[in-house]
């Protein structure tokens, strides 16, 4: 995807407790076929940061994601790619 998860609006919260990072995230659809890849990427990327010892990801469905949650940068990226948003 040409868009990052923050601009897509699927990251709901990130908390850091002395190197244990907890992330609340959702997917754009319950049937998201890329969900495992996304979870792997989030864990792998955060563990590359200095001081991060452990990553816990909570998949949440409330509030449900909608296109309203995208940032302007996210919209621009998807539009440049030919997707109507």
């Amino acid at each position, binding site marked *: 995807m*040409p868009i990052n998860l923050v601009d897509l609006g699927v990251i709901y919260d990130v908390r850091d407790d002395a190197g244990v990072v907890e992330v609340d995230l959702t997917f754009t659809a319950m049937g998201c*076929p*890329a969900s*495992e*890849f996304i979870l792997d990427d989030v864990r792998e990327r955060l563990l590359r940061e200095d001081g991060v010892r452990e990553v816990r990801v909570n998949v949440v469905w409330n509030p449900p994601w909608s296109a309203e949650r995208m940032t302007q940068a996210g919209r621009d990226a998807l539009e440049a790619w030919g997707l109507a948003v």
Partner: protein
Amino acid sequence: MPTAAEFDKTIKSGELIEAQSEMTPEYLRELKHTLVVSGDTELISAPAYYLAAKRAPSINAFMTGIAIIQDELAHAHIAYHILEELGEDQEKLIFSRDPKSFRYPYAFDVPLESWTELVVANGMYDQAGFCLLGDIHDKCSYGPWKRGLNKVMAEENFHLRNGRTWMKRISQAGGSAKDELQRAVDWMFPLSVEWFGLPDDLKMHSTQLDYRLKGLTNDQLRQWWLSTVVPYCEQIGIEVPAHKETKDGTDVWVLDYPFPCEFDAQEKRWDFRKPITWDDVLARWRARGPRNAEMVAMFQEEFHNFRKSHKNGN
């Protein structure tokens, strides 16, 4: 319609062709042929992948498999839709052609029977598709197709990722899982190498290159494929029958077996001691492989049954 000389000038200038009125009949014929190969390849990959996707090891993996199949059907639709705009009948192309007249790589005719074989197909067959379509996307002189491929390329990346991630995971699991992966690679690697067709020294002339329907020769595309697949397999500890050599300062990928050689489709086994000729390969391709008729029937039969029952008013 332009004269042959006018058309030749347009092609050489690097301009894009946007409408049928700008084409010569020869260009139109070659463009349609290239689109049929592309559409048929994407279409037939759906039943080919479905057999194996049903064996997914988790619901999430099954969803990924099904999403890939959905992408492939959409990619087929893009090619057939353009063919329709160029005057072909999409319904006839898909539902009324003889199975043997479909133009797709022989590899899909050999059954993919496990999740492991599906992910190797995603890693190798989709990589072949990525090279072929990437080249068309880059060089194609027909504007509508070139632009349609923007999204196709992005989606093919997802298939490659599924292939590579799972191949690595299965290899790391070791034991019988890794053995199964190696066996799948053993028969699927040479089929993918064959995918790119006749070597350049046997293919005298390519109209597709003249018309800029593609930009790279068969051997160039094959080298591109080898340069991505061989290092990745080596990196995850899977053996492949090819290695890199440096000739005159450039890297060349060399096969460690006679190319082409004999393949037993029922046993899914290559005999590297038995070199064959390209005429033999072409004869095998023309005869098609084990799943050809069954896969085409999978979408043709129900279409005709549905038509018949609706006509009878049931």
